[in-house]
């Protein structure tokens, strides 16, 4: 199988409020969509924040591309090739697609105080990068605010990929999207997997997870309940696990 792209070994995290993560170990391979499932408060957000350098783990280690790594800041993780796309997408709605795409990484020409950003080339590059991922943007000068939720999600992902993400972490990418847009985003995720990226996908929605996931890890109150390969588990069983072990039927009956 070779070295995993990213590995978390016995990672634990404690805040003043208590233990948020306890003894979590998982691997993400290249060319794999690894879904991270769990109810609210399970610790999914904290885990991905550790993976991309926002928090340091209280216990345990991380390995990236076969080497132990310690991230002092998200920038260091980014430089390694670990990119996270959170729910707010870090997009500025009043600015154009191109300006958003190249924010903080604008391509410059010239020297000294006369350095210019080559916006023409930037537009072409942005358009091309988006096209590669199946997004056709007729006018990259449009404000991001005029894009739909799915288009914005695709833009945020395309930006992360273009700037060298090897491991892509997506936090609830389909939460606010309708059916058609969800399909498109998930299709893009699959395309990226086929290119060899490792993808960690957090979602509430088991059906979405099952549509694209290769492996599934379920977190429950800070602990890993298990990691399952695609063919090894049923949708309903996953759902039960997410709900904390209690069968969905049982509490449906409870609700009457």
């Amino acid at each position, binding site marked *: 199988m070779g070295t995993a792209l990213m590995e978390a070994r016995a990672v634990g995290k404690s805040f003043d409020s208590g233990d948020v993560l306890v003894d979590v170990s998982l691997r993400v391979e290249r060319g794999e969509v690894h879904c991270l499932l769990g109810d609210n408060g399970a610790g999914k957000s904290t885990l991905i924040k550790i993976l991309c350098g926002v928090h340091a783990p209280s216990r345990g280690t991380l390995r990236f591309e076969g080497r132990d790594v310690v991230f002092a800041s998200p920038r260091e993780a980014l430089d390694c090739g670990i990119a996270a796309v959170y729910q707010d997408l870090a997009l500025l709605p009043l600015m154009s697609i191109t300006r958003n795409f190249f*924010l903080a990484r604008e391509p410059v020409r010239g020297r000294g105080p006369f*350095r210019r950003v080559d916006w023409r080339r930037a537009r072409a590059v942005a358009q091309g990068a988006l096209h590669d991922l*199946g*997004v056709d943007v*007729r006018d990259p000068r449009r404000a991001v605010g005029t894009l739909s939720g799915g288009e914005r999600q695709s833009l945020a992902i395309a930006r992360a990929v273009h700037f060298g993400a090897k491991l892509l972490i997506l936090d609830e990418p389909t939460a606010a999207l309708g059916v058609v847009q969800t399909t498109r985003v998930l299709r893009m995720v699959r395309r990226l997997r086929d290119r060899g990226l490792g993808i960690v996908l957090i979602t509430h929605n088991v059906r979405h997870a099952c549509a694209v996931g290769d492996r599934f890890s379920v977190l429950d109150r800070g602990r890993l309940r298990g990691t399952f390969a695609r063919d090894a588990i049923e949708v309903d069983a996953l759902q039960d696990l997410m709900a904390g072990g209690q069968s969905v039927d049982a509490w449906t009956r409870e609700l009457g």
Partner: protein
Amino acid sequence: MRPSEPADPGERPFATGSQPSAQGGSREIPHALVTRALRRPELGAVAGLAFVTVFFAFTARSEMFSLGGMVTFLEPSAQLGLLAVAAALLMIAGEFDLSIGSMIAFGGMLVGVPLVHWGWPLEAAVVFALALATAVGLLNGALVLRTRLPSFIVTLAALFILRGATLVGLKAATGGATQLRGIREAIPEGHWLMEVLAGHAFESGFAALAARGWIDTFKSGLPKVQGLPVEILWFVGCAVAATWVLRVTRFGNWIYAAGGDALAARAVGVPVARVKLTLFCVTACAGALLGVMNALDFGSTDAARGTQKEFEAIIAAVIGGCLLTGGYGSAVGAFFGAIIFGMVSIGISYTSIDQDLYKVFLGGMLLLAVVLNHVVRHRALGAR
């Protein structure tokens, strides 16, 4: 089959920017140009300027649009414009500097007192004024960033503090007066910095034109325009520089991002704090520079200079299309906004409209310009 409507939504990549009436390449290009023009933040200001010009064309004496007349309203426009362009940059970054008006008086004092009472050379006095202004700007910015208080409040406090400091400083220096005189006498004749910061440019050129009869003269024979006030050149230069920064540099992109959503910008790696600190220094220096230029031009300064200019600068920037909430706007818009302001405030004296109506008039004009701005932008941003 129309290319923008895929037969199977599952198969085709989705296209953004699809227009319901798009029927092929050739019709889209002019449409795109018009849409892009409509989306520009300056459009409202240009429309406002056209409206104001037409209004005065009908109601004002013809001298208003003679060369001499235009200079009389372009000069106050230029003075306000220096402030408005700086204020626009800061507003796009999501902050306000209300102390910019008081800084005019403060800057006038900082250049006047060393010249007249300490015997400093002009260069030193000017550097002194700008250096202290930069320090104040840094302080403003640091306070805003550290305390996370709205910059409106922090710089409002600075407005009062600077105004009071100017009053106290002038009285201390002059032995009790609120006006400082004698600035011109303290500067040697023909000083190079005076040519740059005060007076008129191209005087010999204008004199030659007048001799040829190309410039009107008064009945006494004096040419109506002796030269181009230096402020106008500074104004144009600053507007050009600010536009260049906003549209074509990395820093400009960061300004838009810092104002649009500081958290998102920081998350992506934009040095938001550095951007804002820099812009607070820019506004402080703009205020001080104008104070210096006025002091040198008029040979005196007083504690009341620049009163209310901070609001006028913000209004000019807003007329020019800057959003009060930040993240959107342009320096060119502030340029046109300042011209509108100057035109309206001086233009009334070319009409027979009673002076008492001035405030009503100014407010009405500004309201019209801003509403126009809003309508145009609403249409433009909403269109797909």
